[in-house]
C-alpha cells in the first residue's frame, strides 16, 4: 500500500498552548478513517494540517514533517494541495460564498480552468447526487442548514480529489441524511478515494469506517479497527459513547 498522508513527529502550538503533540500517523491510499475525541482534542487541527492550511494559512509553532499525496505541506501552496485533497468544513455558512447553488459547485472547477461544458456536466452530476438539482438556480441563503451542508459537500466532491477530509459532516444533518451521506462516502471509498472524517457519532463510525483514531489532550491515544477501538469501555474516558452494538460487551468487560 502507498501512504497518501504521512505525519512524522508533528507538534503544533499557538504560543504556549499545544494543539497537537508528537503525532505519528500514516494513512494508506483507499483507507476510510474516522477521527474521534473530545472537544478541543485537536481533531479539526489535524485535518487542517493534512491539507496544508496549517502551516500555510494558520501560523503557529509547527514542528515535524507532513507529506500529503507526496507533497510537503510546508513547501506546497494550499491551492496546489487542493488539486489532490478536498476538505469540507463544519459550518457550511462560512464556506458557501456564491449567490447561486450551481455557481458554488462550479467554483472549484473554474479555478482548475476546466472547459465550460465539463463544468456544467459535473455540476449537474453532483447536484443530482445530493438531491439539489431542482434548486440549482436558487440562492444558497434560502436553503435549509442540511441542504447547505449537502451543497458544501457537493462543491468539494465535484473537484474529484484523491483524498477527502470531512470535519463533522453530519453535524447539521438529520439522521437519515447522515446515513445517506455516509453511503455516498462509502461508495467514493470503494472507488479508491481516501476518506478521512472527524466524527462524534460513534454509531456512524462503527458502521462505516475501517479505522478509528481517538485523540485526547492533543495526542493520538487509540488507533485501530472500529470493532476493536469502539467496543472498549476505555473510550468513555475519551468523551465518546460506546456504540449500542457493543454495549453488552463493554458492560461485561468492566
Amino acid at each position: 500500500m502507498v501512504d497518501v498522508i504521512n505525519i512524522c513527529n508533528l507538534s503544533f502550538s499557538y504560543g504556549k498552548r499545544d494543539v497537537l503533540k508528537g503525532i505519528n500517523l500514516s494513512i494508506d491510499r483507499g483507507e476510510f478513517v474516522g477521527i474521534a475525541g473530545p472537544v478541543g482534542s485537536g481533531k479539526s487541527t489535524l485535518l487542517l494540517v493534512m491539507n496544508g492550511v496549517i502551516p500555510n494559512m494558520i501560523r503557529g509553532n509547527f514542528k515535524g514533517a507532513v507529506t500529503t499525496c507526496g507533497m510537503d505541506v510546508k513547501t506546497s501552496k494550499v491551492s496546489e494541495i487542493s488539486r489532490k485533497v478536498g476538505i469540507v468544513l463544519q459550518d457550511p455558512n462560512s464556506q458557501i460564498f456564491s449567490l447561486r447553488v450551481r455557481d458554488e459547485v462550479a467554483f472549484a472547477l473554474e479555478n482548475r480552468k476546466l472547459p465550460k461544458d465539463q463544468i456544467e456536466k459535473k455540476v449537474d452530476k453532483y447536484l443530482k447526487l445530493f438531491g439539489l438539482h431542482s434548486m440549482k438556480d436558487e440562492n444558497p441563503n434560502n436553503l435549509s442548514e442540511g441542504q447547505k451542508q449537502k451543497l458544501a459537500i457537493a462543491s468539494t466532491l465535484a473537484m474529484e480529489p484523491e483524498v477527502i477530509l470531512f470535519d463533522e459532516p453530519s453535524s447539521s444533518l438529520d439522521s437519515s441524511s447522515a446515513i445517506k451521506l455516509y453511503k455516498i462516502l462509502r461508495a467514493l471509498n470503494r472507488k479508491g478515494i481516501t476518506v478521512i472524517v472527524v466524527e462524534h457519532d460513534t454509531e456512524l463510525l462503527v458502521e462505516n469506517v475501517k479505522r478509528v483514531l481517538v485523540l485526547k489532550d492533543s495526542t493520538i491515544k487509540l488507533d485501530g479497527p472500529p470493532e476493536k477501538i469502539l467496543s472498549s469501555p476505555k473510550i468513555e474516558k475519551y468523551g465518546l459513547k460506546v456504540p449500542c452494538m457493543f454495549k453488552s460487551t463493554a458492560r461485561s468487560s468492566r
Partner: protein
Amino acid sequence: MILYIPGNSPVHKADARVKILYLVFFLLILFTKDTLGVILPFSLVTLLLYYTSGISLLRPVRDLGSSWLLLLVPILLHLLVNPSLGLYYGVVSSLFLLNVILLSLLNVYTTEIKSLLQALVFLKVPSELAFMLVISLRFLPLMQEQLTKIRVSQALRGYETKPFSLPIPLIVPLMHSSLKRAMQLAISLESRGFDSEHINIAMELQLSKIDYVLLFLLPLMVFAVF
C-alpha cells in the same frame, strides 16, 4: 437584503461593464455638478432607472432601514454652520448622497455577482480588491442576519441600546463572528484551488445591441455634460 434580484428588464440585461461605466459617469456628474438645478433632474433619472428595472423603491428603503436617517446629517450640519443658506446646501448634499446610494444599490440589485466580479477584473480593478468587494456584498446579508440574532440574544439578557452610546455588546460579538467566518471562508476558498491573483470564471460577458447603443451614447453624454 442587499442582493441581486433576478429580472428581465433592460437594466438587468445591460452588460455589467457598461453599467459600471455609467455608474462612474453618473457619480462624476454628481460630484462635479453639485447644484440643485442638476441634482433635481438627475434624481428623476434615478427614479426612471428604478422604474425601468422593475425594482420598487421600497426595496432600498427596507434594506437600509434606519440608516436613511443619516441623510438628515448634512442638512443639520449645514444649518448649524450657515443658518441663512444652510437648508439649500444641506438639501443638495442629502440629495447627492441619496442618488449615490440609490444608483449603487441599483447596480447590485440588477447585476449578478459573478458578472460584477468579471466586469471589475476586465476594467483592470486589482483582482484581490474586486474579489473583496464581491465577497463583502455576499456576506452583507449574513452579517445583517447575525446582527439581528445578536441583538435578540443580548435583549433577552436585558441589554438595551441607548442613544449616543456605542453598542459594544453588539459590535464585539459581530466582529468576532465575522472574523471567524472570514478565516473559515479563506480556508474553504484556498482549499478549492482559489488563487486571488488569477481569478478564473467560466461565464463570459457578452455585449448585446443595447450595450453597443449605450456605449455609443456615453462619450456623447460626457461631451454634452462636461
